């Protein structure tokens, strides 16, 4: 039996894991399931694509592939800018919609509003870019053999990027005032206010970080698959499955949950059939909710 699904699953899992970290952060601090999160992934990817094109046109040489990778420095620079822009997009959506609803209505109203926002954002992408797939690069990549696995240089770079971003986020949460404040607001927003934390500022930071991670996840997905307006919404269920599997609020849990969901999907494609892939996240979600509702790293109330 080929073990290739392990390598494929790890790359897919890293993409899902990064997105799941964003989901778990916003869920635990804002206390609602944001179904528009998938659109941050799509918007982040398209914004990065636009910026990469603009940077490439402005500084032509930067669009040449970097070493063995299929992309040039323009995509890397665009990715950083795209993360910031998607962060601001998330803050903007909160200011426009969710903040007002949080003040006056229950979280279920906000969840339903996030469905509406998701549809509007996706429709806007389709209107702007059409539903035709586009790509960061048309360069062909030769997979390299690492032991029993075949993996492309892009995939290796993406795994490294995922580890780097997850490590940076873990440092932010555990070693900085901003991160400690985010954890405090997640646990008890009223007490956080009493001890002097600007909860509104923490909420803005959470949206920003969540949006930036969504963009990173979207760019990873766009690099290994293709860029389409529905790419984010199609990833939403695996993201929630991973976040719940890891335990809502747990960053390492969301990453591990992402890897497990990614591996399960890849194993299913290889061992059962590609048509079953979409159902795997459902199965994982149901099994976790039945056996361990608080997830792997979650705490029961």
């Amino acid at each position, binding site marked *: 039996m080929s073990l290739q699904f392990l390598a494929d699953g790890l790359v897919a899992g890293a993409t899902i894991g990064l997105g799941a970290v964003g989901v778990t952060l916003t869920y635990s601090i804002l206390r609602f399931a944001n179904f528009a999160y998938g659109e941050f992934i799509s918007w982040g990817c398209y914004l990065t694509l636009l910026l990469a094109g603009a940077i490439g046109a402005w500084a032509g040489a930067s669009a040449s592939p970097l070493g063995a990778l299929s992309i040039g420095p323009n995509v890397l620079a665009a990715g950083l800018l795209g993360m910031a822009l998607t962060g601001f997009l998330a803050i903007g959506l909160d200011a426009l919609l969710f903040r007002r609803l949080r003040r006056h209505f229950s979280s279920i109203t906000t969840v339903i509003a996030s469905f509406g926002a998701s549809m509007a954002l996706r429709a806007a992408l389709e209107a702007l870019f059409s539903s035709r797939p586009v790509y960061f690069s048309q360069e062909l990549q030769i997979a390299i053999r690492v032991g029993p696995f075949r993996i492309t240089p892009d995939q290796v770079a993406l795994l490294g990027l995922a580890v780097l971003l997850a490590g940076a986020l873990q440092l932010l949460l555990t070693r900085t005032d901003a991160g*400690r404040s985010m954890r405090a607001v997640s646990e*008890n927003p*009223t*007490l956080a*206010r*009493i*001890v*002097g934390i600007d*909860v509104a500022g923490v909420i803005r930071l959470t949206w920003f970080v969540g949006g930036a991670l969504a963009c990173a996840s979207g760019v990873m997905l766009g690099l290994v698959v293709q860029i389409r307006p529905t790419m984010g919404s199609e990833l939403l269920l695996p993201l929630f499955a991973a976040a719940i599997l890891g335990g809502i609020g747990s960053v390492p849990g969301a990453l591990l949950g992402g890897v497990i969901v990614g591996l399960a999907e890849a194993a299913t494609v290889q061992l059962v059939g590609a048509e079953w892939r979409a159902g795997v996240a459902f199965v994982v979600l149901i099994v976790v909710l039945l056996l361990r509702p608080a997830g792997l790293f979650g*705490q029961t109330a």
Partner: protein
Amino acid sequence: MTHAPAILRVEDLQAGYEPGAPIVRGVSIEARPGEIVAILGPNGAGKSTLVKAIAGTVPIESGAVTLEGRNLTATAAHRMAEGGLAFVPQTDNVFTTLSITDNLTLAAHGLSAAQRRARLAAIFALFPDLGRQPSLAAGRLSGGQRQMLAVARALIVLPKALLLDEPSAGLSPKVVAELFAKLVEIRDSGVCIVLVEQNVRAALAVADRLYVLVEGRNRLEGSKCDLLGDPEIASLYLGGGRRASVGATP
């Protein structure tokens, strides 16, 4: 007991959770540096709502809160600590998933690294139990240790006034005695303490002055000595002839 002028003044405060339905109805209190002021009253008197309103977590409809002459009435709760006013809620008053040190440093986010180290050292000197295991998650502490941590966290920014909402709730008499001994130490350092308590004996043991609220309004006020002789206090709280024992131990 101090004779300095009051630094915390609450004037004709009206506050409640719902607009137009005040629970606190025109309460006025004041507290001087280096004194413990106890707010007593039956259940539903509005004692907790009063301190929450002073701390900015319950909306104020009218009246004023000033600290050292600065008006804090419209100040957001998260700005109170930097304004010199710290509050320890009755329950859920520590972050259980954060370590002792993280709980303390969270409240000290406006200080430089050197100032934080100095304040942490001072806090651990005052609460040696906390200093012995600073990286322990607060959720693993006992009820008494959590209450100590909550008070320690409130003190880290050197507040002028410290508000406590029923700090003895759920604690054993021994732990209450230890906690209230700490409050006396804190008072003696010059901080003014406003204490809401159901445990009247413990509060009377440490309080310098008392306010009694009934149905959201001031009913009685005065020094402990004055009020202990008041027949209403005696009948309400002390069961008549047991007055003489109050003040010895919490």
